[in-house]
């Protein structure tokens, strides 16, 4: 029950965000909004397949990678978005705190490899590590700015929140505590839904800056 409720909420949120980002792209014709629409759209498709499978057969897909491919595609859109938003000074910016990204992601990857599929987890962890590196760099860089450029920190903060929550989700799935709301997996899933919704206004702020 908890799985279905949280998945439906996430599907609805992703659908709203896709429509919202698509309308922004239609209005402003900016590559940022196109990439954001791609991210939300791919994420929504993966969630739709996952939720529909659970609704129709009462278990989640276990054999092959259908939803996972859509989620990987959504992360590629996100990585492209973070990379294209950064200016040349930001791309050159370095800070020791950036090394937190590989330490965090690779240590988590070790846990996932001991519990689940090697290929998929390695692929998505590398992608997430790259996004975390770029968004952490963007966040630290934006914090050093004054005026409008400083507003970009909200976009990077939303991205970092999504990545941390995704890791929380995957980690809690390694220690499954059943289909109830007492399972931390569903807390992370619900928070991820909120973070996804916050990404749209945060991107608007980043574009305006």
């Amino acid at each position, binding site marked *: 029950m908890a799985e279905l409720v949280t998945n439906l909420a996430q599907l609805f949120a992703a659908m709203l965000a896709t429509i919202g980002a698509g309308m922004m792209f*239609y209005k402003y*014709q*900016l*590559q940022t909004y*196109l*990439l954001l629409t*791609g991210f939300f*759209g*791919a994420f929504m*498709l*993966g969630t*739709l*397949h996952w939720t*529909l*499978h659970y609704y*129709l*057969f009462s278990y989640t*897909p*276990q*054999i*092959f*990678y*259908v*939803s996972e*491919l*859509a989620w*990987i*595609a*959504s992360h*590629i*859109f996100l*990585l*492209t978005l973070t990379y*294209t938003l950064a200016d040349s000074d930001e791309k050159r910016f370095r800070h020791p705190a950036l090394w937190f990204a590989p330490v965090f992601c690779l240590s988590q990857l070790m846990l996932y490899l001991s519990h689940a599929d090697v290929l998929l987890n390695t692929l998505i962890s590398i992608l997430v590590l790259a996004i975390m590196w770029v968004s952490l760099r963007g966040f630290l860089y934006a914090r050093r700015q004054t005026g409008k450029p400083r507003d970009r920190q909200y976009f990077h903060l939303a991205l970092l929140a999504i990545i941390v929550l995704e890791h929380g989700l995957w980690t809690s799935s390694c220690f499954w505590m059943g289909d109830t709301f007492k399972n931390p997996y569903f807390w992370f899933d619900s928070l991820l839904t909120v973070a996804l919704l916050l990404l749209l206004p945060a991107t608007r702020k980043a574009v305006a800056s």
Partner: protein
Amino acid sequence: MTYIENIFVCIAGPLLLAILFMGRKYYGVFFFSMAGMGACLLSAYINTFFAKLYGADFIGATTQIAPVVEEVMKFLPLLFYLLVFEPKSKEIGIAVLVVATSFATFENICYLVDRGAAQLSYILIRGFGTGAMHIVCGIIASYGIVFVWQYNWLKIAGTFGLLAAAINYHAIYNLLIAHGGQAQYIAYALPIVTMSFGFIMTRVYESGKRIEL
């Protein structure tokens, strides 16, 4: 048991002979129709291999393995065409549609050989349901590729995103069919509804502003 490689030879033979008299202009269409049917043939083998490897039952194989394998196999000839020949936008769309149509046609022929053609309702469902679904996946890929390959920054994300979209659309269709009951009627209508929606959205978009990224 259906000997699909024999069916492939039987269909490819007349086409191969015909192309000798049709001239260079039609080589492309012939190549892509062969590629589509060949992709369908190879997909059958690869689906069986993965189904055995993962110990999948019928529902698992049709809802999770087949969509990924079939869409990737349909995509490979296109990727080869894009990377080697660097075609114009208009040529890409036609190539994808020819691959998708020949894939769907060959799959339908194999199903009809296996299950017979006595029931008109079943044939209509295969033609306008499953066949149309393959065309929709082809349209998603062709319209999308024409757009995303115009921009270097969108090529990787866009191509992978389109492939994932086609796979998920195909998987959702198979999921509804495999469940049966009222869900399968939704599946039968899905490709036609999607085509109509896509047609309306294209008209709306074309009436709007031109994209300048």
